[in-house]
């Protein structure tokens, strides 16, 4: 069966967005969205782990017995998370410090385990890598946008660049994180329903146009038939 990469991309970024649609990985989402830069850092780390673990799980899917698949997945994920920690600590120490405790906690991030279990263990290597990449992009985008929103309102800055002195400290707090998350989930659901409504209307309009066309054709054919029968009568 041919892999539909377009569908994988659309699923990862929009239709099954891990943060805003599936509500997975809530812990880092709430804790690290105080700054947009944290969102990018965390998103990049999760994307790397997602791609690598998906590829390895997909490669080993016929070797790992189903009875021990979850411990095996956790072992694989933990290996890549530890690698990410070591690399970040050496090369990007500031980002490593700002991510703090939430970096090792990627091991128990539901997104990674869920993708390993529901996708990578049933699909080929390339498709699994693509799934990891687009799920990671979806997660990164959600975290970055939420981080920018909270940073602008809570600190009057974006990506560390000061915009104004006006600050609403509530958005920097934990309660502000829940509030922001709620707003973004609601906005995402609203946009999604709006788009699906538009699509339904478009599909209905197309259906109506098609029906009208076929009705017109039917009327024409009836007219032709009646005309020819009247000629025969004469």
């Amino acid at each position, binding site marked *: 069966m041919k892999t539909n990469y377009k569908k994988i991309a659309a699923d990862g970024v929009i239709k099954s967005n891990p943060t805003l649609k599936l509500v997975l990985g809530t812990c880092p989402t709430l804790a690290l969205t*105080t700054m947009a830069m944290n969102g990018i850092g965390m998103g990049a780390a999760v994307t790397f782990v997602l791609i690598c673990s998906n590829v390895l799980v997909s490669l*080993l899917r016929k*070797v*790992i*017995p189903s*009875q*021990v698949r979850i*411990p*095996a997945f956790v*072992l*694989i994920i*933990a*290996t890549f998370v*530890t*690698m990410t920690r*070591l*690399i970040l*600590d*050496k*090369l990007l*120490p500031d980002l490593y*410090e700002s991510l703090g405790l939430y970096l090792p906690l990627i091991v128990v991030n539901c997104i990674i385990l869920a993708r390993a279990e529901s996708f990578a263990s049933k699909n080929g290597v390339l498709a699994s890598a693509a799934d990891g990449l687009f799920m990671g992009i979806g997660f990164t985008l959600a975290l970055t946008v939420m981080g920018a929103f909270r940073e602008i309102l*809570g*600190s009057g800055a974006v990506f560390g660049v000061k915009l104004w002195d006006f*600050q609403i*400290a509530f958005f*920097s*707090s*934990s309660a502000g994180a829940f509030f922001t998350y709620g707003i973004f989930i609601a906005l995402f659901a609203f946009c999604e329903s709006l788009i699906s409504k538009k699509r339904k209307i478009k599909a209905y309009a197309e259906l109506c146009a098609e029906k009208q066309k076929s009705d017109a054709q039917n009327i024409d054919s009836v007219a032709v038939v009646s005309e020819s029968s009247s000629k025969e009568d004469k």
Partner: protein
Amino acid sequence: MDRLFNNIWFKCITVLLLIAAVSGGILAIFNDVFYVSAEERTQRAIKKIYGEEKEYSVLLDSEAGDTPFLDEKNYGRIDKIYTIDQPDTGEYDMLFNSTGFGGYKNGTITVWVQVRFPADGNITDGEIIKVILESYEKQTLMSKFGESFFSGFYLEDVTERYFAGEHFTSDKNDTSNMTNPVSGATYSANAGCNAVNCVLEYLKTAVGGEE
């Protein structure tokens, strides 16, 4: 033997052991390649303060087994002290890694405090040159802390005033002390002030200011 190899639990254990062994090997290599030494970590902190790497001597390092300094007034804890000579002027700096207690929800704030002493080595002429935020615990309003908060500690006569009985406080109504409040984050500001007070307390007691 065939029965053993075909046993599902034998397969399960073997696969898990193999994955663990390969992971362990890969991580051992990564650990060697990306190892960050204590020296490198210290230079990172020094670079944050000076903008470049400097040679230093260790006076106290709790990570190396030294006992951290805890002041009697319970302001905070000092985990690391380094000294850095200024060869051009003959002055010398002391760098303190100080953790202030009494923050929001009993949390802490850890800062690096750079104190510069004159060439004659008179402790009472020590001056705070820089205070840099290292980390914090449980503080939710750290975004309120701007450069103005940290520069509030840069007083020329800071050691003299401290030795005379004053201390840094976040209470803006307390005019008898050195006030450095942050509006909207009183508890966090208290922990920040305590971190600096702890350094001054160290100078007063451990180095001999009190004598």
